[in-house]
């Protein structure tokens, strides 16, 4: 065992004994009491105190200071333990945090990062506007400097979770006369103020955690301008990279098992949850799914998932070896979201009429959830930049095709 492996093994042992120590009994697997708000908070704080809700961030800003391998171990152990890790703002941890670490000043890092780690502030993303979606730089929301404040006017749309958020990171136009990309700034401000109106939008999946947000003389402290005035576009793009990476990293990565020491018996036989699920609806002939056309579609899906997972992994290894292409994140976002949609379609096909339930009697809660999931998945190729926009990015940045 190398020293690195030994250190990881020690870390694993520590996590393994720490989890049951800090997990409130009501949250533990098999518990029959409903966890109270206090218990949930205790669980969150146990994680946050060690920085494990933002495990890769530096310790000085409340992060865990862990390496990627340590994070992998942490995740494995939490999964093994069988209790959901405490949730903190997705927008805060995977989008704003990394951008503040790179572009924020010391005061901004001190002010915001720890609050994200401890889940004290929920964030939302104010990028899209009714007139500026794919053409993000066409945004019109104005921010005008007035003493130590900016006065914000305009409207944002598709703002996920805005109705549950406390603060917004927002792209605003601070110089209307400059070229499109040159007059944009990256501004943070509090949503709990008189000039802000938030109205939810219902999606086809029945969810309505999407909002249109209106600003009428809303106020932002000038000290919450991240990066230089009118220099927001660079930050905006970097944040989108983080967003894309996360949207594709959420895909189940197919990984073919490597035998551990001790022989083949340690490697579980490969399975396909999608095929297992389909079995109940399609029936079997021998041990094969009875519908050859659907079996082929599922095989193609699982096969692509395996290839995709390996490609993510190879990309990571290449980056480590200094041979990576950063624009590849567009490819991952594209492929992951298209695959996720494909998965939804396969599931709808295998279930037949059992996939048509919306609510109430006659359908299992799982069936209803999957149906809604199918509808929600259609947004995967729109949110965070549409598939067409990702294709443009690949064509231009990776393949170098002319404009």
């Amino acid at each position, binding site marked *: 065992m190398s020293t690195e492996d030994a250190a990881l093994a020690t870390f694993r042992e520590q996590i393994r004994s720490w989890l049951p120590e800090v997990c409130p009994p009501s949250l533990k697997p098999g518990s029959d009491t409903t966890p109270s708000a206090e218990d949930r908070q205790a669980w969150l704080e146990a994680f946050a105190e060690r920085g494990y809700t933002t495990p890769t961030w530096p310790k000085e800003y409340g992060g865990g200071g862990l390496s990627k391998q340590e994070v992998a171990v942490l995740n494995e152990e939490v999964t093994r333990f069988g209790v959901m890790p405490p949730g903190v703002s997705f927008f805060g941890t995977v989008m704003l945090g990394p951008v503040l670490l790179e572009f924020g000043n010391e005061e901004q890092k001190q002010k915001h990062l720890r609050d994200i780690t401890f889940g004290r502030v929920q964030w939302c993303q104010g990028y899209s506007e009714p007139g500026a979606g794919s053409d993000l730089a066409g945004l019109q929301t104005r921010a005008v400097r007035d003493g130590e404040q900016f006065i914000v006017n305009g409207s944002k749309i598709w703002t996920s979770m805005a109705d549950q958020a406390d603060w917004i990171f927002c792209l605003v136009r601070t110089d209307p006369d400059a070229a499109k990309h040159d007059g944009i700034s990256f501004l943070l401000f509090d949503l709990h103020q008189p000039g802000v109106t938030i109205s939810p939008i219902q999606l086809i999946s029945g969810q309505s955690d999407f909002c249109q947000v209106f600003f009428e003389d809303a106020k932002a402290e000038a000290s919450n301008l991240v990066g230089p005035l009118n220099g927001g576009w660079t930050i905006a793009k970097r944040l989108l990279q983080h967003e894309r990476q996360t949207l594709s990293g959420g895909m189940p990565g197919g990984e073919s098992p490597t035998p551990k020491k001790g022989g083949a018996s340690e490697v579980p036989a490969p399975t396909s949850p999608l095929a297992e699920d389909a079995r109940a609806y399609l029936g079997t002939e021998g041990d094969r799914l009875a519908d050859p056309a659907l079996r082929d579609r599922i095989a193609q899906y699982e096969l692509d998932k395996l290839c995709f997972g390996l490609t993510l992994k190879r990309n990571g290894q290449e980056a480590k070896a200094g041979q990576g292409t950063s624009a590849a994140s567009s490819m991952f976002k594209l492929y992951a979201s298209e695959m996720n949609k494909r998965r939804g379609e396969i599931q709808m096909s295998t279930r037949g009429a059992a996939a048509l339930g919306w609510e109430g009697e006659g359908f299992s809660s799982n069936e209803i959830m999957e149906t809604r999931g199918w509808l929600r998945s259609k947004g995967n190729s729109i949110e965070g930049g549409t598939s067409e926009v990702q294709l443009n990015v690949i*064509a231009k940045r990776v393949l170098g095709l002319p404009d």
Partner: protein
Amino acid sequence: MSLVLTEEQTLLKETAAEFVQEKSPVTHLRELRDKSDATGFSRALWKEMSELGWAGILIPEEYGGSGLGLSEIGVILEECGRTLAPYPLLSTAVLGASALALGGSDAQKQALLPGVAQGETLLALAHQEKPRFAPYDIALNAKATSDGFELTGEKRFVLDGHVADRLIVVARTSGSVGEREGLTLFLVDPSASGVGVSRTNMVDSRNAANVRFENVVVTADDVLGDADRGADLLDALIERGTAAVSAELLGLIQEVFDRTVTYLKTRDQFGVKIGTFQALKHRAANMFSEVELSKSITIDALRAVDEERPFRERVVSAAKARTSDTAELVTREGLQMHGGIGMTDEEEIGLFMKRAKAAEVTFGDGGFHRDAFAKATGF
């Protein structure tokens, strides 16, 4: 599990790239085709390749090889795929050498492997009988006699069978067509009485042969591996062959894709480069994803075989399915994006398309391997 090449593999790949681009560019295949070369490749060049160690990569050192793995021959095959080099790497260096290395007796190895490693002895696997790949559809009969066997039947699509010094013949010693049990592999001298070899001309200008066997007498010493239990050896050969063809296809895919992107940047129509048209851009970007996926799975499949990883048949099938389908995609789209010129014999894209189709069919196409993948995943 690493998916980036080792230093040694990178070096091997660079050497191979340089060598085939200089000595066996696509024009080399074209010349051989145009003069209807009887061998279909240059024996002198094969000798040179063997001196670089390519023929002996999978051969143990004690028999004159280097005892490396499929990952190593994979990077060479990849480079050969880029230039359509028509050399007997698959028939001899992968299938033939593996058959002996994995199944041969010491005497058989002594007799043949050094010659293979030196580029002097050529081998061919005589396996397939029907047009569509079906590993156990073997009817060729090996009737036991007092001192050996008598082979009767026919083989088709025997790659490099027209020049092979030894045929590795998959025969049925018991059971019936389609059954996995009851197969035996034999080493047969094609000049033996009762063997009739006729060369075929295939769309990719490679060489294969139909071989007839009429009461061909072989002895017990010619059995390769265990009699009646040949499927174990055959499976191992097919696994290696499948991964190897995937590697060649990967090279072909990358080459066609690169050429197509270059064409999009250079061809003017409507006063602009055709690469400015989004109708082509998006398709090119989509192809890029498929190319990247093909690369990852192929590297992993080669390593899975080298590491004797459990459930590797799943990964190998994934690699062949993915590379077969991607090759079909990039050659089809590549030709289309070359417009009318792509249809000409003079432009090389068509040669790639032909080879892609032949390689796709070799050891099973996308549909075959999706089915195998499903089976290996338990559904």
